[in-house]
């Protein structure tokens, strides 16, 4: 079954095409990792066109869409999630969401990515690849789980341990999506893993525009 995989949870957007088989086999046919920063919305659909072109396939060949639900910076993260949801809807395909951190690295590891505001998103995995703890968001200095760390190497200093660079991959997304791809009707709704509430505080009282004493 041909699967389109998308992720915009990190500054590198990912579009990939892979054949997935029910025995868990994953054959990646094309993959584009674009260092798009804050330009995910501009560059994601062109990247999808590119991987289809690279593989010599077209959208009607695709049978399912897998997308990383984060955690990641909200604005960019939503671009991938809404693209997957609407693309799948328009083509009548199942859409499957997975934790983006599950798709970074393999084996026993702790994944760390940039959560901005001097914090990291993190999750810890067993040798089998099963997630043991997380996803969470915290300051690297306060992260108590063990390494080895993979993900964003810029946090090595603050973690006090090396971080092996690793990004979200098509193979990683499909591995994480395995159970849901096998039974697409069981797939959970595509709700991003925000992990943080929106920044907003209700106003307390109307602030007077005049001072208590009369103006001259």
């Amino acid at each position: 079954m041909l699967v389109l995989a998308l992720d915009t949870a990190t500054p590198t957007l990912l579009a990939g095409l892979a054949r997935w088989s029910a025995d868990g086999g994953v054959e990646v046919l094309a993959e584009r990792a674009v260092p798009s920063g804050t330009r995910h919305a501009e560059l994601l659909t062109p990247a999808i066109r590119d991987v289809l072109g690279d593989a010599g396939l077209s959208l009607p060949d695709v049978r399912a869409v897998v997308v990383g639900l984060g955690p990641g910076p909200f604005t960019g993260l939503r671009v991938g999630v809404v693209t997957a949801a609407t693309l799948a809807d328009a083509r009548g395909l199942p859409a499957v969401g997975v934790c983006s951190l599950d798709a970074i690295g393999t084996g026993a590891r702790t994944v760390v990515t940039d959560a901005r505001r001097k914090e990291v998103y993190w999750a810890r995995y067993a040798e089998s690849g099963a997630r043991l703890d997380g996803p969470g968001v915290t300051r690297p200095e306060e992260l108590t789980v063990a390494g080895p760390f993979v993900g964003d190497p810029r946090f090595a200093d603050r973690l006090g341990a090396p971080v092996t660079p690793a990004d979200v991959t098509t193979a990683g997304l499909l591995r994480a999506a395995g159970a849901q791809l096998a039974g697409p009707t069981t797939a959970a709704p595509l709700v991003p893993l925000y992990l943080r509430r929106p920044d907003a505080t209700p106003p307390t009282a109307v602030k007077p525009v005049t001072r208590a004493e009369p103006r001259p």
Partner: protein
Amino acid sequence: MVDEPLVLGFETSCDETGVGLVRGHTLLADALATSMAEHERFGGVVPEIASRAHLEAMVPTVHRALADAGVRAADVDAVAVTSGPGLTGALLVGVAAAKAYALALDRPLYGVNHLAAHVAVDELQHGPLAEPSIALLVSGGHSSLLLVPDLARDVESLGRTIDDAAGEAFDKVARVLGLPFPGGPPIDRAAREGDPAAIGFPRGLTGPRDAPFDFSFSGLKTAVARWVEARQRAGEPVPVANVAASFQEAVADVLTAKAVRACREHGVDHLVLGGGVAANSRLRALAEERCAGAGIVLRVPSPRLCTDNGAMVAALGSRLVAAGVAPSAPDLGADSSLPIEVVSR
């Protein structure tokens, strides 16, 4: 006879998730979801809350639009989306969705200007726009006076607010008066019982040396707050209806006077109103009165179409298709401060 193209329009520039379907000048569907209730307690639209709500509402709203119009996604001939101006995070949800539908359906995509779409929506009710027209667009996010020689290709800004949008002034005055958010409807209701001449609130930027077509509502808002606070400090009751009516009169007076002046100075005899504040009863009444007096044809869409919606975007998309304007490039994004001169990009 071949059917005119079916255009699917997406609008997510603020708190409304709008998906509209238009064929030519015919409105087929106008599905809307709003997160307004979630913003109420914050006294203004919280961008992140709006963006999250857009994502949740997107696919269900598309389904509702298709069902209301009785068409299938595959019937769509072109896709249009608000590319700006607006809240970046909110805009991007709509842009990404529209790009995905255009890609999935293999149809052209038009990234359009939200303000021009406010003008285009009137064609769904009153037929082809007279060109040139003057457009007065007033809402919680914008206050603009436009000259529209050609809605598909040539829109000029004559003036805009230099501080608050007119709708923001309504929200802030409502807060001062203890009325709910958004402030437009409750002020309109309260004002019906009040005397619009009770208090002489200032008319911003109406001096002989002021920019003739720019607006300023910050001074008015502050003057209202100061007036109310003075009563409160003196322990006197605040005459809410009179304050609301006098404030509303000041806003409607400035807006309509400048719009009529713009028509006169540019030799234009058609004025279009749009934006949420165009639903204000006093603004509509005063605009009618002054346009009639000046021999100007006034066009005002129904209140439902004045506020943000997907039909307005589809209406402009339809206009662009009919005019043979080139679709957007594949790397279309959002521009929170897209200038009005850019009708589509």
